[in-house]
């Protein structure tokens, strides 16, 4: 059974349909990339899946439980889903290490010592150990995003969501972050990643889901979707993305 099964998910904002019946499966160990034009509802879909946004109708079955039903422990669900944001969203008053340990200590109730050992280990894996005592304001964009990825991963989530993790970065820093995400991909970390970056999409995905105006239009492996799709929306999207590079 899939780790996350989305069935006919609808989200309306002020009466306007943003998601118009989305169905999608994400299996354990699978990495999916979600692509689509700006404003088509990608972020909204991700936010519905960890209930940062309450879906209007439809089902989100996470580990066998429909989490859209009342009475679900929303915070427990969120604790099991890592989230990486476009603009890093590091806690600015905390050092890199404290950013990583805060959730471990306060949510997972892990002792400070162990939490900081875990943080050090994970930071070291992405080359951020030497920056562990710096504040976000002292880091480059690429370093911030690597720290944010570690903050999410350190919680040992069942799945990692990434919402345009490289969009705010210049190409050089973007590459740093792609390298890190690619390693997660090779480690079979379950991922669901929104991106406009065809380069990132190709190197970190088992398959790519293409969304347009609140509906899923296609799902396929990168090569077929990029080069062989006959759908004009998909062709046009990849032409416009290619223009940016």
């Amino acid at each position: 059974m899939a780790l996350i099964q989305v069935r006919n998910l609808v989200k309306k904002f002020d009466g306007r349909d943003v998601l118009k019946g989305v169905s999608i499966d994400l299996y354990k160990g699978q990495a999916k990339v979600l692509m689509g034009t700006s404003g088509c509802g990608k972020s909204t879909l991700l936010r519905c899946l960890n209930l940062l946004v309450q879906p209007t109708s439809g089902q989100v079955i996470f580990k066998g439980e429909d989490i859209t039903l009342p009475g679900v422990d929303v915070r427990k669900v969120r604790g099991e889903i890592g989230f990486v944001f476009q603009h890093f969203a590091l806690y600015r008053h905390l050092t890199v290490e404290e950013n990583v340990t805060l959730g471990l200590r306060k949510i997972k109730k892990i002792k400070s010592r162990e939490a900081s050992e875990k943080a050090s280990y994970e930071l070291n894996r992405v080359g951020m150990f030497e920056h562990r005592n710096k504040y976000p304001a002292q880091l480059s964009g690429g370093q911030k995003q690597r720290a944010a990825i570690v903050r999410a991963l350190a919680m040992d989530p069942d799945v990692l969501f990434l919402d345009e993790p490289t969009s705010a970065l210049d190409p050089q820093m973007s590459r740093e972050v792609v390298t890190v995400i690619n390693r997660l991909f090779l480690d079979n970390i379950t991922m669901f990643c929104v991106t406009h970056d065809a380069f990132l999409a190709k190197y970190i995905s088992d398959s790519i889901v293409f969304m347009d105006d609140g509906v899923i239009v296609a799902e396929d492996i990168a090569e077929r979707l990029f080069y062989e799709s006959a759908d004009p929306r998909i062709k046009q999207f990849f032409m416009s993305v290619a223009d940016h590079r």
Partner: protein
Amino acid sequence: MDPFINDLIVYWPQLLAGLERTLILMVIVSLTGLAGGVCVFYLTLVKSSILHKWTEAYISFFIGTPLLVHLFLMYYGLPQLGIRLSALTVAVIGFTLNVSAYNARYLATAYNGLDKEELEAARAQGFKHSETFRLIILPQVMRLSVPSLTNQVIQNLKDTSVAFLIQYHDLFAQIQEIASSNFHFFKAYMTAALVYLALVSIVVLAARRFERFISLPGFETH
């Protein structure tokens, strides 16, 4: 010796007692006003729209009306309803209500400048609203509002001088008394001004040190 200086020496114990009451009032209301400000600020973030409106109304009311009116209302008005409070009690309550409103406004202003994606990140990690407030929002808005909050402490110190109008025998009340017994008004009020200036200077220095102490990269306030 100048007879005024002589009077200062004679009245010294009384002046010291006044100084002590001034400092007591300032310290108490600075602390209660900070605590109150944090509570009121917390309420401004609550989703319930009714509570939200009441909180806004509270802030607007106390910022929009003179402190002296509240003090008089409680000290001279309440006894007519059979409620009699000491001058210190009235001063502490009146100042606290007033200072809390100002501090809440400063904190709310700083909150508007926060990166809301950080708060969403906290929510996504599984933090409760109260934890996000305590662990993320408060440490940031407090740092960002340090200049306003410490200014408020200075304001409190100066404002304590109006408490003599409700028979609180603070420093200014004592000096007032000396002046009305020896008629050296100019010298008396100059003395008062210099003492307040000295006290304010001490607070300013302490505030600067405190600002440096809690300042972090990305949170420099000057």
